Each structure stands twice: as structure tokens, then as C-alpha cells.
């Protein structure tokens, strides 16, 4: 038996469709009951099957997507308040608290670290590349990289 011939493959398709709905609409006011209905499941059955498939309840997955998207926006130097509302949170304090609980850093601290890394990649890229690869690519011979100039 393989692929499309598996029994209940249609259930997986519906769960995947629900996941895609969350992926595409995370910034809005998603009603998870509505998603369960769209997928033709009872709410209990939907949560159970979603968690079995993704190791997260639909609500946990929605939070996960929002936090991951917020990280991308923070990396792009978007102000924290703007990020909060852009990913679907309606309170900066709850966004900050949740972000810190899940990542160990406040959004502002995370953004600072990412800005530092971004700047370092621009000015000292060789610091982020294993030397063996940099040498094979001929990048250690480039005199305009700061790290090479030092030697």
C-alpha cells in the first residue's frame, strides 16, 4: 500500500488544508471552531487529529506561526509594536510576554541580537563561514574582507 491508496488519506488532506488556512490567515482573528467546521470535523475530533499530526493543538500552532512570523519581521527592523499587531496580537504586553516565554528573550532584545548579527555578516562575513569552505571558494584571498586585512 502506498501514497494515495492509504485509507483515511482524505483525513490528512483535510488536516493539511486546515494547517494551510492557519498559515495564510494567522494575522487575522481566526476562529478555530470555524476551521474545524471548514474541515468537516467536530471540534474535539479536529483538535485530537491536528495534535496527533503536528504535536501541537491548532491554537498552539497558531501561536507558533505568529511568533515565527514576528521573528522574521523583527529581523527586518520592524518596530515591536508594529510587529505585534501585524501578526495578529491585540496587546503589546501579551505579545511581549508570550514571545519571551517561548524564546527566552523579549522582542526588543531579540531584535537587537539579530541587528548585531546582520551587521556582522555585512562587515565580517568570514566569521560566519567555516574557514575550509571560505578557502575553497577563494574568499580568504579577497583583500577587501576586514578579517583578511588584519593578517
Amino acid at each position, binding site marked *: 500500500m502506498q501514497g494515495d491508496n492509504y485509507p483515511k*488519506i482524505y483525513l490528512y488532506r483535510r488536516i493539511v488544508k486546515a*494547517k*494551510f488556512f492557519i498559515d495564510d490567515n494567522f494575522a487575522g482573528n481566526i476562529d478555530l471552531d470555524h476551521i474545524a467546521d471548514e474541515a468537516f470535523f467536530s471540534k474535539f475530533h479536529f483538535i485530537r487529529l491536528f495534535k496527533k499530526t503536528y504535536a501541537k493543538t491548532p491554537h498552539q500552532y497558531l501561536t507558533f506561526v505568529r511568533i515565527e512570523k514576528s521573528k522574521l519581521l523583527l529581523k527586518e527592523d520592524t518596530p515591536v509594536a508594529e510587529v505585534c499587531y501585524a501578526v495578529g496580537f491585540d496587546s503589546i504586553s501579551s505579545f511581549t510576554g508570550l514571545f519571551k516565554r517561548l524564546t527566552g528573550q523579549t522582542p526588543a532584545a531579540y531584535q537587537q541580537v539579530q541587528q548585531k548579527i546582520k551587521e556582522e555578516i555585512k562587515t565580517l562575513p568570514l566569521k*560566519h*563561514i567555516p574557514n575550509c*569552505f571560505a578557502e*575553497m*571558494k*577563494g574568499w580568504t584571498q579577497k583583500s577587501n574582507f576586514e578579517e583578511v586585512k588584519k593578517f
Partner: protein
Amino acid sequence: MITKLNHVSIFVLNQDSAYDFYVNKLGFKVHTDAPMGPGMRWLTVCPPEQPELELSLMSIDKGMMFTEESAAAMRKLVSSGTFGFGVFECNDLLATYEELKAKGVEFTKPPKQEFYGFEALFKDDSGNWFSLGQKAK
């Protein structure tokens, strides 16, 4: 004493297209994306739950690694699906298969229960193939 693996090289035909495949289709995270001069880029991505394992998406260009001839030969080998660079793992193979298929990933073998496990095979945008297996419960 060796403690872990932290970089793996995957040769790709085009880094922009590979970025789209690994990040937007497979859902991998960008670890480092550093422009290194005209036409040169150091690009690494990591699987969502392994932030310290960098998959380096390496271009195949004439230079210190390749001559013109060996680069052409390597590109031909990659595009013909010669290389299988590894085995990925997922929580639920049927769901992951449906999801990746919907995103346009090409499977060369759909999920099938083998004596060694539940497995599917897919190709990246360059032609490299990977096994995708379900984590044992």
C-alpha cells in the same frame, strides 16, 4: 573527540531557486545568507528543530573548487539525480507528504511501508534526492 556534525554541503544548480525550495517549500530556516561579492553567496539553512545543523546550499562554479569541466560534470550529475544527500524525519509522513505535494515538491516515491520503516523519497529543485521517514513512535 568529535562531538557533533554542524555543517553539511548540498550542491545546487541555483541558490535563489534553492532558497525558495528549502525555505518556502520545506519550511527550513535561514541560518546565514551572506553576499560574498558579485555572483557569490554563502547560504545556509537549517531544519526547524535543528538550528545548529547548517545545510550549506553550495553553488557549482568554476573557481578553486571546480574547473570549468568539473563544474559542468558536477551540474550534470546533480541535475540527473545522482546524489542523495540525506534522510529527513517528520512526525507524520502522510500529512507531510500531502503538505509538501501541495506546495509543489516532487516525490519520486510516495509513502510506503518498507521493512526498515515508513518512507517516501523526494527531489529538491536541483535534482538531489532525499529520503523522508516518519519518526518511530
